[in-house]
Every structure is written in structure tokens, then in C-alpha cells.
């Protein structure tokens, strides 16, 4: 499809014109930090290290940064404390051993504490102390969580938030994937190759994918 004509008013005009004011007025990004969390929700330093490491294992550094590199671990902890992606909902503790002692009074799970205990258990000790085996241990948990009938497994929730933290980061969204805020046109049918990269700015795909 040919690029449509852009009579009169194009992107450059827009960005150079009155809308610069709008850009400058952008809402202040509230500085939401882990340290702002109430004491009973604030993660320990070890949980921060562990979640950062786990994020890096899920999305390793390749030709682009990894999950831990971009802070997906801290994002996950913040997201868990605020209940994103359903993580604040009561969980059914029946089918997964070891959940009960990590439940809050409202039946929701303290995911970070559970993960810490679960990985230490699977590692037979200190998960952070066995770097060479970490991928295998986490891979084992992942396999268990994606087994038939484990749709509500808490690791799936944590992994979802790690993915969110990574692919909505600047590196994950615009280096690993492509980010185009203003495509300017719609090409309905282009050839795709194994090298074609997805767009993190394909909002419909993000919603429905």
C-alpha cells in the first residue's frame, strides 16, 4: 500500500508545533518506589536480588539487555505489591504445596516470599548460591507450573509480570522489539520472515495476543 499523502499537517509539524507544549506538560510520573511500600509489603534485599536474578533467567542478556538488566525484577515486586495482573486476588492453595504459609489474611499470596522459599527448597539450600544450577532449578519450576491443570499456578503470575516489566521497559520495548508511537500509515499485508520483529506498540496485539 502506498503511503498516503500527508497534506498540510504532518508529524514533524505536529511535534514542532503547539503539541510541544503538550509534551512539556506531560503528567509528572509519580515516583512510585519499592521503598514507598508499607513494611509488610516491602521486599527484603534478598528478595530483590532473587527476583532480579529470576528475571534475568527468564529473559537473559543476548544482543539486547536481559530482564534483570532493565529492572524487571523490581518492577515485578512493585506490581505484586499493588496486585497487578490479578496477583492480589485470593488463591486456591489446595493443589500446590507450601502456599498456605505465604497467604495474606485476605487469601491472596505473598508471591515474592513464596518464590523465595520455593526456589530455595528446589535448590536444596540457597538458590542465589548456586549460579550454575539456577536455570535448571527455575526451569523445573516453570515446567511444573505449565503442566496440565496448573492454570492458577503462582509462577505463571510472576512470569507474566516479569514479561511485562521487560517488554514495557525501554530496552525490551524498543530494542528487543520495535516501538513506533506514530506509524503514520497502515500497510495491511507485508511479507513476514523469520527475522521480522514484533512491535511492542501494537496495542491490540498486546491486549488480545
Amino acid at each position: 500500500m502506498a503511503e498516503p499523502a500527508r497534506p498540510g499537517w504532518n508529524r514533524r509539524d505536529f511535534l514542532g508545533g503547539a503539541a510541544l507544549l503538550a509534551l512539556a506538560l506531560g503528567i509528572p510520573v509519580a515516583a512510585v518506589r519499592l521503598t514507598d511500600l508499607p513494611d509488610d509489603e516491602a521486599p527484603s534485599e534478598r528478595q530483590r536480588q532473587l527476583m532480579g536474578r529470576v528475571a534475568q533467567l527468564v529473559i537473559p542478556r543476548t544482543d539486547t539487555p536481559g530482564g534483570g538488566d532493565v529492572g524487571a525484577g523490581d518492577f515485578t515486586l512493585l506490581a505484586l505489591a499493588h496486585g497487578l495482573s490479578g496477583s492480589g486476588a485470593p488463591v486456591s492453595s489446595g493443589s500446590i504445596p507450601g502456599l498456605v504459609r505465604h497467604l495474606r489474611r485476605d487469601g491472596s499470596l505473598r508471591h515474592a516470599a513464596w518464590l523465595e522459599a520455593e526456589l530455595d527448597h528446589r535448590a536444596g539450600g540457597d538458590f542465589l548460591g548456586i549460579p550454575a544450577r539456577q536455570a535448571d532449578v527455575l526451569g523445573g519450576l516453570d515446567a511444573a507450573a505449565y503442566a496440565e491443570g496448573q492454570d492458577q499456578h503462582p509462577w505463571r503470575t510472576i512470569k507474566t509480570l516479569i514479561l511485562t516489566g521487560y517488554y514495557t521497559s525501554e530496552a525490551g520495548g524498543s530494542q528487543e522489539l520495535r516501538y513506533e508511537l506514530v506509524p503514520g500509515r497502515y500497510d495491511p499485508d507485508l511479507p513476514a520472515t523469520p527475522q521480522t520483529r514484533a512491535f511492542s506498540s501494537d496495542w491490540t496485539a498486546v491486549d488480545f495476543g
Partner: protein
Amino acid sequence: MEFDAIVVGSGITGGWAAKELTEAGLKVLMIERGREIRHQQDYETETKAPWELPFRGLGDAKLYREQYPVQMLNRHFTEFTQNHFVNDAENPYTTEGDTAFTWFRSYQLGGRSLTWGRQSYRWSDYDFGANKRDGHGTDWPIRYADLAPWYDKVEEFIGVSGQAEGLKQLPDGRFQPPMALNAVEQHVRETLRARWPERCLTIGRTANLTQAKEGEGRAHCQYRSICARGCSYGAYFSTQSSTLPAAQKTGRLTVITDAVVEGLDYDPIGRRITGVRWIETKTKQHRRATSRVVFLNAGAFNSVHILLNSASEASPNGVANSSGVLGTHIMDHANTLSALALMPGWEAHTSFGNRPTGVIVPRYRNMDVMDGTGHTRGFSFQGGALQSTWTAGRRDPGIGVEYKAKLRHPGMWRMVMVGFADCLPRPTNRLTLDRSRTDANGLPVLKVDFAFGKEEHAALAQAKADATEMLTAAGGTVIAGTDQPGPGGTAIHEMGGARMGNDPATSVLNKWSQAHDAANLFVTDGAQMSSSACQNPSLTYMALTARACDAAVTMLREERI
């Protein structure tokens, strides 16, 4: 304060009323309950990237549960758009018994014109004749021919892109060039055309410009598909991009924001509205103005609220309610995900850009042959084909380099078909004032009593079966689908409550959207609807508004009101 006209509300129809009335030479006051939002200057998140927001666009779920428990259920409610929706905790309403109604609202200058889905469809005589044909509700006092020229006017001004298809059930309009179908959608269109000629998959008719309207400062769509954040290009129709500047250009418009109308003053002898009263929400001061004519455009449910809350000794059941039907026969389309299918075989195809509309399959049941199973009206589909992206990784096992590599590429094509079924007008589905609870302005809150009936359930059951059949025929593998509607309000097409009709004893408004009981009162938002059809209603509200404005101006000139 004295005006020729007062327009209550600044959304899709309020903007139109202000434009038409000021352009006809009237001095108009527009009263908006929410805050001011200035075009281009106040779209605060428009250009933000996810990494510039604290919760990366998902928003603070804890805050949402506490403050936005209803609005958060809207797919378009995100961290990018939350400032364009109401705070539920500050704007309560109640529901009857164990019924549910998700009332999605935007209290601000421009109202829901900033957040609407932009789908713009004409209704046909299958719709305007529906009540008469099957006996539900009251007959519309108008037919398609009455509205056709007003559809022309509205489409040309707001800019609707779409494909002419020559369908009786979905009349063609004055379209800008259509947006394109992607490869999978084109394939499904051809499959349907070959097997079911009456089932037409076509691109959504959407109020996004494919050609700039330079004289009006509106650029063509940039294919961002982030419309609900606000669009500084003015590429989709909103009050801010379109009708408000036109009205302001006349020099005859006064706009007041942060002012919630509490009631209308009614003179039962002269059968006229003699004043509009409002509360300044910031100061809690009460104000009043008078005008020769009043247009209610507060949104279907809030226009009814104003009329109910205008009760006085002379009109104890509310203004314009001598019939007793005010608040009754409310509707919303029964709406659900009819089918979701994986569409294998299209891996060599992709697309570029974010098209801000999906596709539709207009109604094809119960037209000239009554072939609906258990229902007498129509259903239609909206949806589209898309490729998945990183979010698909949530469902997939794996960690590490290979897992990351897989998520780098667009995933398998999938196609979604969302059913919208006609909702019968029922006297039991109604709005009342709940005087047991008041809002922050001291006004009684609205109580919604709404449930779908067996006809809507039957229509969605047939929609699910049909969608499954169509996607399967096109080579898809259906992996999900339901025949259960979401709660009322899900379609965000709530309407009715002040229905139009020929008989003052059984309807609130006449064929000019004019109150039977008050000649200088017009209600031209969704409240006036006598039936729901199964297509998106906003274009029809706009056409009815433009038509009513013309009628009101004529009546004023002839001193009939």
C-alpha cells in the same frame, strides 16, 4: 443569565447541539459537569511510552480496586486513559437487588467523545420498524427516510471512513476512503461471500479520518490506535477536535465546566422549562440560568436523572413524565466474545501500523425471513484478525534464550468475533432515583435495574454458533467463545429511558426529540431511543440531534415554542 439555548452536556450529542444551535444564530450556554480538557494541550499521556508510567500502562490495580472498581472493567481503561474516566468512588450509583450494570462514564469536557469506539453506523428500517413488527416497545415515530439527510450531514462533518457495500440492513453513508482489511480478514471476507452471500465482512466504519480536513485543523489518522488518550492530530471525531471549535467560531457559545445540573424548572401552565439549575462542584454554589429552549445531552442515564430529579409539586414524578414511562425501557446491547480462533497458514504475512478499527459482519438474521432461533431481531459481529506479541508468552512454558528469541517475532494470527445482540425494550429495565444515598453534591444517586432476557440469550447462542461456523469455514481453529452476555453496560451503549413515540400517554418525546410535556425541551442523547438495533448508536444520536436542532430553530423562528 439569559440565553437562547442551554445545552446540558458536552459529549457527542452536546457538542453537536452547541454547533448546530450557535451556527443557526442562537446564543448558547453549554454546561459540563466535569473538568475542562483542552484540545492538544491537555492530552497528558498522549505521547507517553509505557516505560514513562509508574505501572507501565497497566495502572495501579490496588488503586483501581478501591477507586475505579467499575471503570477498571472497561478494556479501554488503562494507566494511559484513566484520567478520561470517572472515579467510581466519587460518583456512586446503585443497582437493584442482585442485578449488575457496569456504567462506564467520562465526566469531562468532551465526555465520552474522547473515549468512544468511533464506530459509526446508520440504522435501517429493519431497526426503526422493529418495535412495530414484533410488538416489543413502542413504534418509532420516524423511519430511515426521516433521518437519511441528517446522517449525510453528520458523516460529512465528523469524517467517517468506510466501504460502501449496498446492504439494506446497513445503509451506505458519505464515506471517506476505507481503511484496508489485512490478509486474514480479506480471506475471511471472501470465504463468507462464497458460502453465505448474505454475510458481509467489511471494514469498520469509523470516525477516524483517512483524508485530512485541513480547513478544520484535522489531520488524517496516524495509525497509532491510542485514540482514548486524546488525539492532537484531531484525526478522530471528538467534541474537542470537531464540534466545539465550530461552535466557538460563531462567537455565540459560553461553556461552563465543573457544573452539575441538578434540575429543570417547569411551568405546568405554560408547559415550558423556565430555568436550568446547577451546582458548581468546586464551590458548591447553586446557579440558575434561563433560555428559550433547553437541550438535554447529559448522556442517556444522566439526562433521565435530571428529569427525575426535577420533580416538583406540579410534576411529582419528574419533568416530562406525565406518561409515567420516564426511566423505563432502558437498553444496552448484549455483548460477548462469540468466537476466538487461531488462523494457521498465514505466517508469511504481517502488517504495519495500528489500524484504529476492526471489522464488522452486519446483521443478517431476521430480516426478510425470520430465521432467528428464539429471537426476533438481529445480532452483528465486530472483531478482527491480529497477530500476537509478547503477551502470548504468558501462556507458554519456557525460560531463557530460546524463549526470548521466540517472543521476538509476531505470533500466530488469530481472529476475534464479538457479538452484539439487539436488546428488547422492557418496562422492567428501568432507572429510578435512590434517595437512600446521595453523591458528593447532595443529589440522590441513580438506581439501575437491568437484566437481559431470553431473547438476548437466544441471539447470543446463535451468534456463537454462527461465528464458530464462519471461522471454521475460513480455516480457523476456534479455541474460545461464549454465549453469555457480560452485565448490562458492557457494550457501553446504554440507551433509552425517555423514549420517542407518537402517543404522549406512552412516550416521553415526540418525533422531533421534543418532550410531549414541555415544548421547549429536547432530549437528543441516547435517552431518546425506542429500540436498540444491534449496531453502534452514536451516529444515530448525532443525526437525531442535528435534526432536532433544525426543528427547534424553525419552531423558535415561527414562535411556536
